[in-house]
């Protein structure tokens, strides 16, 4: 028996923040005190609050330590583990709490979250099948083995689960198609290619709770009549792949994979196929081509994968998050509980990756129907640095932006689509007034242009031409006709592209023009980027009245463009200034303003 369980976040996010060194330091300290054997140390899955990583959570004490460094471990061990006293300095602190918060229940980031899909992440050792079983794992599978395949499809359909990969197609209906397709050979494919820049929802599930995916696929196999599955996981997720491989071996050992699963007349073989760095392989038909060893290019539909999928056989393709929901629904009494959460048209929860200018970045799981405002301000903690909210990009390169006056929009499939955005896989990029919407569209378009597979004319050529127009606008070479050209081209591409990548890649352009047309016009007609991003289209200017002459900006300037005496107002030499932004980051007086080029008219910052 262990005295305590020390859960160290070992997911990729915290690993990047240095959790390996933290855990090494912890072990060193424990060994120094000779008490290492008293405690169970687990490199766990992602608890979600990446902003404050590395994170260590101690049970049964229920203490959440964050922003840890290796040198903190001495204190943690001595004071908390040996001395029995919580180290307040290492608890969560922020403008949203009055006193340091001790555990999940008092940390505002977690207040409105509901852990369905992330129920095990951060709580179990991801490499232990026993812990997964203790938490109710594989019960749904046991129950499914006693059900008729069509009944499983119906139960999932009635629970209202919609595909979490972006399209939102009802999962139970999709399974029904494959169920009805003629056999005997069918496949289940898990789309773990997660290509949206900044998205890591699927990664966290795969790293933190790999058995949930196996169970989901097995239940799908039973429902659809499939006996083999592929998990198509991007190669950039080596930890996820490693966890999956271990989980598969364990499941085989426990007779939960392979032949005669749990003694029933049901066989299932699981394969892992690693991606090779192509965003387009997240598109289902390109993914299937890739599994077949071919170049990842989409195919026309019909026929749909449910009729003709991988190797020509009926195939169900589901996203990781979708599959992680399945055991919750199919377990005894699960469906009834499931439908209590969410809205009429969008049941359940959604995992979002909060990124950008929000204070609390990380992974959150919220019930469908929660408003954008709640996610950004309550969960996200509002805009960093106290700046103003401008818009949030939902759905990555396929999605659109939602401006401030739509903050009360509920997050569900249909509301988002009506507003010109999409749910997408769950990436939410929050933007403040220092984000240029033209540049944002340009960023996403340069991504899709590079990732376009090249097969169809509208996407291959059209994204390039749209990008060229945006480049010119950002460089001050835009002409008034550009907006109409962009609009026409974007609509033609949407109308005629072959696959989802092409059909949705104009969305960032269309939605930023829809809600921020004035910014485009300002770029084109007045050569001014008021967000201070498009370098040829603004100047930095120091407000002499408020400048205290602290010299912080001058010292930060790499090209010596700022001159001024100590305690005297400083001035920026526009000839030398490269507009790198280092000065404005350092200024404590908030007195560096963004102005039009060569003009006195300014914008208050």
């Amino acid at each position, binding site marked *: 028996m262990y005295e305590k369980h020390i859960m160290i976040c070992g997911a990729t996010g915290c690993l990047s923040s240095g959790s390996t060194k933290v855990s090494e330091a912890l072990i060193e300290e424990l060994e120094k005190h000779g008490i290492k054997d008293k405690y169970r140390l687990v490199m766990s899955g992602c608890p979600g609050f990446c902003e404050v990583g590395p994170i260590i959570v101690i049970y049964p004490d229920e203490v959440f330590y964050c922003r840890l460094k290796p040198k903190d471990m001495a204190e943690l061990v001595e004071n908390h583990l040996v001395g029995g006293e919580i180290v307040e300095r290492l608890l969560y602190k922020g403008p949203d709490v009055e006193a340091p918060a001790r555990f999940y229940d008092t940390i505002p980031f977690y207040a409105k979250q509901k852990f369905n899909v992330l129920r095990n992440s951060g709580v*179990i050792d991801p490499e232990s099948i026993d812990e997964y079983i203790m938490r109710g794992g*594989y019960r749904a599978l046991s129950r499914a083995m006693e059900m008729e395949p069509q009944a499983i499809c119906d139960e999932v359909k009635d629970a209202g689960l919609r595909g979490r990969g972006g399209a939102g197609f009802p999962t139970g209906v999709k399974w029904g198609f494959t169920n009805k397709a003629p056999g005997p050979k069918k496949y289940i494919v898990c789309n773990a290619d997660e290509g949206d820049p900044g998205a890591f929802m699927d990664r966290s599930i795969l790293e933190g709770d790999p058995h949930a995916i196996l169970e989901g696929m097995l239940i799908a196999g039973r429902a659809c009549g499939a006996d083999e599955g592929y998990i198509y996981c991007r190669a950039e997720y080596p930890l996820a792949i490693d966890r999956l491989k271990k989980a598969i071996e364990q499941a085989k050992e426990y007779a939960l994979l392979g032949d005669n699963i749990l003694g029933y007349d049901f066989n299932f073989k699981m394969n892992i196929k690693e991606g090779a760095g192509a965003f387009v392989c997240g598109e289902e038909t390109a993914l299937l081509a890739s599994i077949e060893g071919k170049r990842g290019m989409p195919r026309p539909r019909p026929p749909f994968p449910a009729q003709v999928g991988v190797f020509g056989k009926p195939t169900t393709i589901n996203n990781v998050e979708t599959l992680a929901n399945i055991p919750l629904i199919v377990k005894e009494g699960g469906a009834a509980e499931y439908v209590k959460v969410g809205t009429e048209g969008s049941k359940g929860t959604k995992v979002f990756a909060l990124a950008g200018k929000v204070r609390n970045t990380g992974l959150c799981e919220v019930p469908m129907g929660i408003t954008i405002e709640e996610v950004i301000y309550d969960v996200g903690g509002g805009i960093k640095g106290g700046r103003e909210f401008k818009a949030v990009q939902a759905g990555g390169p396929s999605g659109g932006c939602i401006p401030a006056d739509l903050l009360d929009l509920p997050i569900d499939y249909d509301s988002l689509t009506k507003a010109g955005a999409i749910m997408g896989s769950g990436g939410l990029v929050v933007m403040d007034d220092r984000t240029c919407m033209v540049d944002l569209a340009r960023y996403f378009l340069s991504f899709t242009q590079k990732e376009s597979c090249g097969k169809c004319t509208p996407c291959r050529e059209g994204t390039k031409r749209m990008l060229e127009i945006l480049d010119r606008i950002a460089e001050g070479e835009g002409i008034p006709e550009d907006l109409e050209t962009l609009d026409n081209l974007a609509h033609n591409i949407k109308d005629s592209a072959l696959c989802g990548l092409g059909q949705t890649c104009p969305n960032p352009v269309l939605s930023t023009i829809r809600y921020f047309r004035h910014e485009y016009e300002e770029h084109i007609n007045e050569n001014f980027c008021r967000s201070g991003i498009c370098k040829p289209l603004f100047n930095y200017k120091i407000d002499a009245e408020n400048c205290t002459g602290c010299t912080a900006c001058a010292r930060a300037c790499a090209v010596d463009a700022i001159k001024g005496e100590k305690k005297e107002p400083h001035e920026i030499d526009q000839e030398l200034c490269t507009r790198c932004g280092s000065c404005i980051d350092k200024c404590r007086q908030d007195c560096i303003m963004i102005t039009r080029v060569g003009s006195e008219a300014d914008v208050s910052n």
Partner: protein
Amino acid sequence: MEKFIDHCCEKCTHTKDKPCKDFVKCCVEGPICHEDPACADKRKAIIEMVALDDDFVIC
């Protein structure tokens, strides 16, 4: 019995090649095919090693 896959006693028949239908439920709530408090204790011991708190186990 160190892991759930290990047999609690000779009465247990679950193996990879000859699985038992009740295996999953039995891991936490077992033994199911026979009565034996000692076997139940073995399971509890496995659980106690890793359960973070009283709400850890979900049946």
